[in-house]
């Protein structure tokens, strides 16, 4: 098992012929992901890498190749619409890697996707990987290992850092989900926690948050009320100044709300252990899973 995607996932890539899309499609195929189709309007009928058929629309990719998940690499200006197209074409899962999408576009897209019962991961995220089964996005395959730890994070490279530390410590992962650094996203921490709770492979969960918003605080309360599996937290941005956007559009302290301090103390109040440094994570996770 794993969450959201496994070896039965059949992936269509939106933006397969672009610079980022083509590079990461090759990496996904190399990892063993079933990439069954690509979409670039105007390039329908071509073959990508001599094997993967390219279509003009996502609907066609679903009809012809049975795609059930989409990964989006199109530029920000078209990404909101690409998300809606995917959700309207019969896939169950949409992973949007694109960054820089206007938040007003995302307000509509997240609602459109939810109305159709489709799961959206992202945008502005590294995607997800279920080690040994499928990689939907850009998380490097060589740093993960199949195992019992579920990872969910708002970040990209910080996630890699933590995952790599887990792998080196002999702690493999069930699935690693990058939910994205934007203020308005599809799947949130609680959705992932709930899925990990119900996934038999997952025995413990690592949650990597950062400044801005209240998702971590909500997750902390959810963990106390609903989770039987241990969760270990980390929050980046203790040295971030208020009012500044720290790279991620969502990583901003507004007034006195959304600080790392507030998030860490909410975790602790709700009995969630918080790692001070990324490197401390493996030992705490081991202890939590054995306790």
């Amino acid at each position, binding site marked *: 098992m794993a969450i959201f995607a496994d070896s039965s996932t059949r992936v269509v890539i939106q933006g397969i012929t672009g610079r980022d899309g083509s590079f990461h499609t090759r990496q996904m195929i190399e990892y063993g992901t079933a990439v069954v189709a690509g979409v670039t309007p105007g390039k329908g009928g071509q073959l990508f890498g001599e094997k993967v058929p390219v279509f003009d629309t996502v609907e066609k990719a679903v009809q012809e190749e049975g795609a059930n998940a989409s990964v989006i690499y199109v530029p920000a200006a078209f990404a909101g619409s690409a998300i809606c197209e995917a959700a309207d074409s019969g896939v169950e899962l949409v992973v949007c890697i694109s960054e820089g999408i*206007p938040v*007003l576009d995302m307000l509509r897209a997240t*609602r459109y996707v939810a*109305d159709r019962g489709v799961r959206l991961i992202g945008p502005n995220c590294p995607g997800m990987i279920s080690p040994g089964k499928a990689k939907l996005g850009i998380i490097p395959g060589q740093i993960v290992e199949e195992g019992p730890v579920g990872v969910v994070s708002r970040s*990209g490279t910080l996630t890699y850092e933590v995952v790599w530390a887990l792998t080196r410590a002999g702690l493999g992962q069930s699935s690693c989900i990058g939910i994205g650094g934007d*203020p308005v996203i599809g799947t949130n921490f609680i959705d992932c926690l709930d899925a990990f709770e119900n996934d038999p492979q997952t025995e413990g969960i690592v949650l990597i948050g*950062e400044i801005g918003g209240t998702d971590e605080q909500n997750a902390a309360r959810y963990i106390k009320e609903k989770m039987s599996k241990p969760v270990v937290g980390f929050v*980046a941005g203790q040295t971030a100044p208020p009012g500044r*956007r720290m*790279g991620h559009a969502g990583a901003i302290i507004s007034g006195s709300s959304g600080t790392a301090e507030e998030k860490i103390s909410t975790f602790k109040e709700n009995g969630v252990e918080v790692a001070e440094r990324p490197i401390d994570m493996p030992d705490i996770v081991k202890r939590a899973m054995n306790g």
Partner: protein
Amino acid sequence: MNIHEYQAKEVFRQHGIPVPPGEVARTPEEAEKIAAKYGTGVVVKAQVHAGGRGKAGGVKLAATPKEAREAADKILGMEIKGLTVKVVLVSPAEDIEHEAYLGAIVDRSTGSVVLMASPEGGIDIEEVAAKTPELIYKETVDPRYGLLAHQASRLAYKLYAGDTSRARQAADIIQKLYASMLGAGASLLEINPLITTKSGELKAIDAKMNIDDNELFRRKEIAELRDTESEAEEEVEARAQGLTYIKLDGEVGCCVNGAGLAMATMDLVKYYGGEPANFLDIGGSSSPEKVVTALRIITSDPGVKSILFNIFGGITRCDDVANGIVEATGQIDLEVPITIRLTGTNEEEAVEILEAAGFSAMTDMDEAVQKSVELAKN
């Protein structure tokens, strides 16, 4: 991106929100001329991206053109929260009967635009939220339908219960506020205060607007409103190169790929007893040129005593970063020690490149951070 009050008022004006006239002045003489033209008492207001302008003395009433000149003379050049005032807005003074608050934000938790109103205007809305949260009224806009007329009306009647004349004006302003938000690509808008004049008219006499940076590529006219004079020079240069740089006051210059890892690296600097000098994310696909710019920006900060590179190669190739470091140090005289940590994609090639150029590289983040903090202290 923040825009100034006078710019936000112009956006409001274009959308039909009643805003008093006003012109900007960069010298006391210009302020005097503008005041003479209006022929009434005026208010002279500092145009800086900082809250609390009134408390800082950045807003002054002037009864005559001469007083307007004196007020502008005091305000221009003044520092408010570290920002120098270069422009003032001169507007006719209004007779104020009542002050209310109107706002619109993108609410992260509901994934919707939320409109807010309060009869307690003229003070910081966070203060109202803390003291009398029951006096803040809200309407959540369903993005499928947009703001519906009854929502605007309901909010307006909460604000001015029993006063249909003002409630109708307010409902109209609320609709136009929402239209301004969509029109300008804003993530936050505030009218504080929305005044009632002695004759019963509503007017927006202050305006605050934050634009979603992600909107700028498709709104050239809004992007042009950016006041680069009010930003640190390095931040402007970084943005031009596609880097995100935020200057802080510490001594360890940080250059990291990825925003989350950059924040975590800064936190580690603090953990080991140092202070980060900046946030700098060189982004995903890092070309050597980006690294050159990054290093130039970091070294231009005289507070930097030691530089730390922390790269986790995923899409970013470690050899690209290594080439950039070698290239940059060939162009810039490095006066401070540099600590390099790289791991991941093409790590071996990177180490070879760096060692051939006389640098050493580490693979452990904590060791590298500790070392850079120690070096900053020597």
